[in-house]
């Protein structure tokens, strides 16, 4: 059966009371356009990285909204930032910024969210 793309998944629940929404909040606060995604999947269809390997931006979107941030880092690092997704997005979402924010957010929250000033090279 699995060869046809069908499989029986084990039942599972997501506890909305518990989930880690820091990353979602962080991304939305800097890129509000992310709110209007309608999960059409256009980004995933055109994706240059998705053409090379199993990589699904639309799924990424879903995972963040569910607070399932585990394993996200490995996934998001597949993106090559080429920008095709931004051009095809019917909602005009600035997807490249969303990706960069997720990448940065993961580092920020892994290092207990210290101020990001130390990242620059100041004179």
């Amino acid at each position, binding site marked *: 059966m699995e060869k046809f793309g069908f499989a029986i998944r084990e039942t599972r629940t997501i506890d909305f009371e518990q989930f880690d929404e820091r990353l979602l909040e962080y991304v939305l606060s800097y890129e509000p356009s992310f709110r209007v995604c309608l999960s059409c999947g256009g980004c995933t269809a055109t994706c240059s*990285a998705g053409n090379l390997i199993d990589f699904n931006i639309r799924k990424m979107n879903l995972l963040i909204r569910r607070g399932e941030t585990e394993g996200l880092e490995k996934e998001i690092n597949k993106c*090559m930032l*080429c*920008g*095709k997704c931004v051009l095809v997005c019917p909602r*005009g979402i600035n997807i490249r910024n969303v990706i960069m924010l997720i990448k940065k957010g993961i*580092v920020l929250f892994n290092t207990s969210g210290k101020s*990001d000033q130390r*990242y620059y090279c100041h*004179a």
Partner: protein
Amino acid sequence: MHKELFTLPFTIGVAFLIVIIVVRFAQWARGLSKIDKIRIWKNVLTVKSLLSIKESFREGLLHRNIFRKNPLLGYMHMSLAFGWFLLIVVGHIETVLYKQSLSFPFHLPLFFRYYVREETGFFLSGALTFTMDLILLFVLSGVGLAVFKRFRSKLFGMKKTTKLKLSDKVALISLWFIFPLRFLAEAFTSGLYHNGSFLTQPAGNFFNSFLPLDSLMLPVWFAYSLSLGFFFVSLPTSRYMHIPTEILFIFLRNYGIKLKKRCNAFSFVQVYSCSRCGMCLDTCQMNGAGIKTTQSVYVLKNIRNRSLTDETLFNCLLCGRCQQECPVGVELNDMRITQRIESTLQYNSSYDYLQEGKAEKADVIYFAGCMTHLTPAIKKSMVDIFKYAGVNYWFMDEEKAPCCGRPLMLAGQFEAAKKLILNNQKLIESSGAKMLIVSCPICYKVFKEDYGLHDIKVMHHSEYLLELVRNNIIPPAKQPHAVIYHDPCELGRGCNIYDQPRELLENYVDVLKINDEKELSFCCGGSLANLKIQMAERDKIRNGALEEYMRYEPDFLVTSCPLCKKTFSKGTKIQVYDIAEIVSKNLKTSRQRVKHIKDLKKEIYQTELI
């Protein structure tokens, strides 16, 4: 107060300034890379130093670059800088002649009129007093213009000027006061002792008629000294630090020191060289989208003030228009990319999923680029042309290939980009091709600059097609159309390719000459370098450019970048073509040529059979 103490603020100010500058310069010199230090040692005793002195004189004192932009603004800067310089030089000559020796107190030339009151009649004394008055008048005219400019900057060809912080204001106001106070002090002295010339003497006589100059003279000299002191003390923390730093920058640049991918002392030299004149503000197209706080001058200011944020740093199209305007020549684009690299250093991808692809043996590799895949007309045109010209080519990213790495580079993901570059480079080299044709200027720039493709000639398709036309491989076919050629930022300002596309186009259509072309061309607004801008803001930038283009009433727009094409075609009713489309469209009209090539191939085939 002891009479002689009035020069103290000046002396303290100068001493402070010299110490700070020496410490700063030493810090920067130490922070340079080893190779750069060797560069300095190798070049310091060559003609490059002389050239640097000449350039410092031309830009630091005469301000030729600003003159070109606006003569009045240039005059203002020149009268202040060059005038002050002359005051110092002539003042010293005057003192030497008066003293008949080279040793005299450090402050004497500045307060010469105060100390030398009698008609001494030393060699050329009259002429020198006259010259000093003339120079002072020259400087005062500059100060007058500067004060006027603060309130009416439009007359100086500038719509916007930068906002000042406290130390800038202190420095600015003391600078404004220095020369009027010097004038007053000299006038008061000459009113009492008749040691002035055509400017100070009549003024002195006039003041003497109604002011108690006896008791006013010393306080005014003190105020003059004080304003000098304030200016020198506030200089290192204000924007006027650009005066000493710019000279250092000119020398280092002429010695061949360049910005690195990572931030180093040379980046800071450039940061401090910025005078915050604000010339980069007017030219920035982001103004049209209502984004007014992320321009280059503010980024440099934020780096100095330690207040940079991602929202400022990444909200820039990196179109390079500001870099063309900068009178100091700060590498604004690369400065921003360096900061982006630093700020994203902690989260670079490794792309360990990349596999070594299989290269096809071919003479020419064609790399369309991600953006070209969204504008299929371009790649189809290129394929048609290759087939027509009978080129043995390999379409490298026809099915699947990693991105070229430039979008990552623009986002500061340098380490990640390197992974893609290495992967692609291996693939390209293993194909044995001698030429790499690229359709996207964004890819072109990275292939040219960051790939180590030594034996392979990288060409943008506009260059390549021009070569085909020149060699009569594809026929020219002039059509009665007048078009505007839009220079893509990465190809034009980025790689200096302005003439080849125009020459190619002239074989097919007439290219209109417009104001905003070549170095001054617009950005389409679609730039991948801006990670923060919203779609609606991009549209405003695009519409601004289109509006300007439409005034020339072109039959259609031609560009040579898939992203520009895509951006523009969303916003206008007239057709937007890529240069490759223009060429390939006209191939179909000349069937004769096709036949000729078919015959040629048949001939070759037959000879091979025999």
